[in-house]
């Protein structure tokens, strides 16, 4: 990744489309997006106002795509984007934004601010102003195949464990299976119970599935850092594996941005519609529920809530499915204030958790989640993103709160009837 200011500027220039131009033309500087962003509400720093994070992109739009801006440029007027400016913006764009998209839901003129911050990252990365942690993760994703450096033998070892513990067979490279399951590195390394849970549910519901040994990684660091060609390469690996195994569907696992990457960004990155369908694991499970293929044997009486992962709910459209599933086994399900598409981010999505420099602030802004949880007094929290889950556990520990953070898929599996 050779970077230069010129490349960064051009990358920003390439990003601007009619939607962004409408957004920038419409902003009235009302400041309401600040109140939608946990990086502002929990720190009070005005420079962290979401729309301000798009300032490099706005300046490029103004100078390149508006008459007044172009005239101003000829006379050397107007605010320019400089390398120093991009450097200054790095911590705003990467450390103080999880691309959660809450600002985009609140903006009274309708600006998709999060979408524009995502585009701003393309310029930042091309100019060499991306965080070291994300650059490392992206390099590992390209060279090793996983941002955490997880190689096939590691997955095979986890699969062997699961098979030994449960006596089930985990299908690998099965041609013609209906579903090909992707996993996030975090699930492989930290939550192998997820693989076990999926295997158990699919056995219970007789789903034909497989894991590919060539493309099992669901996450996409190229998206988080903002380098579209790398993101496209990572998507292409999945597309190739799906073609090789002739599967009809690819399952995105419990990981927020993986779903965004493979479901919504993927086809646009590679410039071609898929020959297969992408479903989120929760969509598939809810589908199985509707078909009556999931039988629950016991119900939970604890007071439980659901943390919507931003890229799955607000940015991804999987909102009702988790609730339908939780209601299958939970007698006492309670929503947090501001839930569903308006839920507050955990504080560690969008590459923030891969960026060590942001460790302090992500825990600071967890105060928002704490306030949400304090309002409802629950015994446990369910979610559907391993990245949220790790950070929620971190945050709960930091704030001395004692409650389990459960995976929805795993909790469902535990409460299914045994065959």
């Amino acid at each position, binding site marked *: 990744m050779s970077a230069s200011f010129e490349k960064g500027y051009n990358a920003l220039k390439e990003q601007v489309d009619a939607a962004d131009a409408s957004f920038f*033309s*419409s902003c*009235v500087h009302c*400041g309401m997006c*600040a*109140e939608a962003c946990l990086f502002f509400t929990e720190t009070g720093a005005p420079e962290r106002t979401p729309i301000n994070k798009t300032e490099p992109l706005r300046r490029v739009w103004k100078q390149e795509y508006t008459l007044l801006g172009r005239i101003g440029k000829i006379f050397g007027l107007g605010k320019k984007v400089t390398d120093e400016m991009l450097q200054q913006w790095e911590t705003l764009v990467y450390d103080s934004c999880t691309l959660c998209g809450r600002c*985009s839901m609140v903006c009274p003129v309708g600006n998709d601010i999060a979408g524009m911050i995502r585009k701003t990252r393309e310029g930042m990365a091309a100019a060499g102003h991306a965080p070291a942690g994300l650059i490392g993760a992206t390099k590992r994703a390209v060279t090793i195949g996983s941002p955490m450096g997880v190689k096939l033998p590691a997955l095979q070892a986890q699969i062997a464990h699961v098979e030994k513990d449960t006596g089930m067979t985990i299908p690998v490279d099965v041609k013609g299976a209906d579903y090909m399951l992707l996993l996030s590195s975090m699930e492989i390394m930290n939550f192998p119970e997820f693989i076990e849970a999926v295997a158990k549910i699919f056995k219970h519901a007789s789903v034909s599935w497989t894991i590919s040994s060539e493309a099992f990684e669901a996450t996409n660091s190229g998206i988080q850092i903002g380098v579209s060609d790398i993101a496209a390469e990572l998507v292409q690996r999945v597309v190739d594996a799906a073609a090789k195994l002739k599967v009809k569907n690819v399952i995105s696992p419990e990981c927020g941005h993986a779903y965004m990457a493979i479901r919504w960004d993927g*086809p646009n990155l590679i410039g071609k519609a898929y020959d297969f369908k992408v479903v989120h694991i929760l969509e598939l499970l809810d589908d199985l529920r509707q078909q009556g293929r999931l039988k629950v044997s016991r119900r939970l009486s604890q007071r439980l809530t659901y943390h919507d992962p931003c890229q799955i709910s607000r940015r991804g459209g999987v909102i009702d499915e988790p609730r339908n599933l939780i209601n299958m086994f939970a007698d006492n399900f309670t929503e947090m204030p501001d839930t569903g*598409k308006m839920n507050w981010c955990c504080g560690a999505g969008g590459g923030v958790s891969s960026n060590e420099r942001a460790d302090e602030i992500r825990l600071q802004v967890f105060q928002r989640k704490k306030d949400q949880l304090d309002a409802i007094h629950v015994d446990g929290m369910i979610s559907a993103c391993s990245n949220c889950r790790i950070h929620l556990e971190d945050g709960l520990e930091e704030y001395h709160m004692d409650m389990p953070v459960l995976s929805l898929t795993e909790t469902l599996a535990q409460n299914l009837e045994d065959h």
Partner: protein
Amino acid sequence: MTETELLTWVRGPGFQIATIIFVLGILLRLAEILMLGRKPNLAEAKGSAMSSGLRTIFTRTIPDASTFRRSAFTITAGYIFHLGLFVVIFLYAPHILVFKDALNISWPALPSTVIDATTVITIIALIALLVHRLKDPVKRYLSNFDDYLVWFVTILPLVTGYIAFHRVGLPAPSLIAIHILSVELLMIVFPFTKLMHTFTLILARWYNGAISGYRGVQS
């Protein structure tokens, strides 16, 4: 130039020049935006972009309860001055005559006492918002020359109109000429400032709703 000549000029050539800049400027700006185009989305849709986009144009007018609580002042004062401007601009009898002359359409007016009171309320709301802009850390941080210019050219016709209505200081023709000039200033500045949001927010809300709706989220 006598005051009658001045009034004749601002009503005639002055108004024509301002109208041309206003209309062509807006068309230019809209063309600038739309010509940038947008790549087709190759991901399989989960919902309708079109219907969600259209819905969001309207739904984004009303904030959700928690957003309202967090930005109550901005939203309340914003509503007051926007509605106030609408009433004062479009429901005052002499203004309706201007539209009738230019476009040959007309509609019922509100009594001038109501317009008078609305003008005062609108001016107060705008002053309150300016004070907030200067004091609130976020707004102050975001604000640039454009924000203050737009505030000035928006409040100016309200103030000059109020003075003209109450005939304070100068003879009536001069006061009316000054009022019309202030409106012409607003019209000339309009296309090149954030005042454009009047029109572009329809596009912006549509895009926002379409992006969400395509993925099956109601925005």
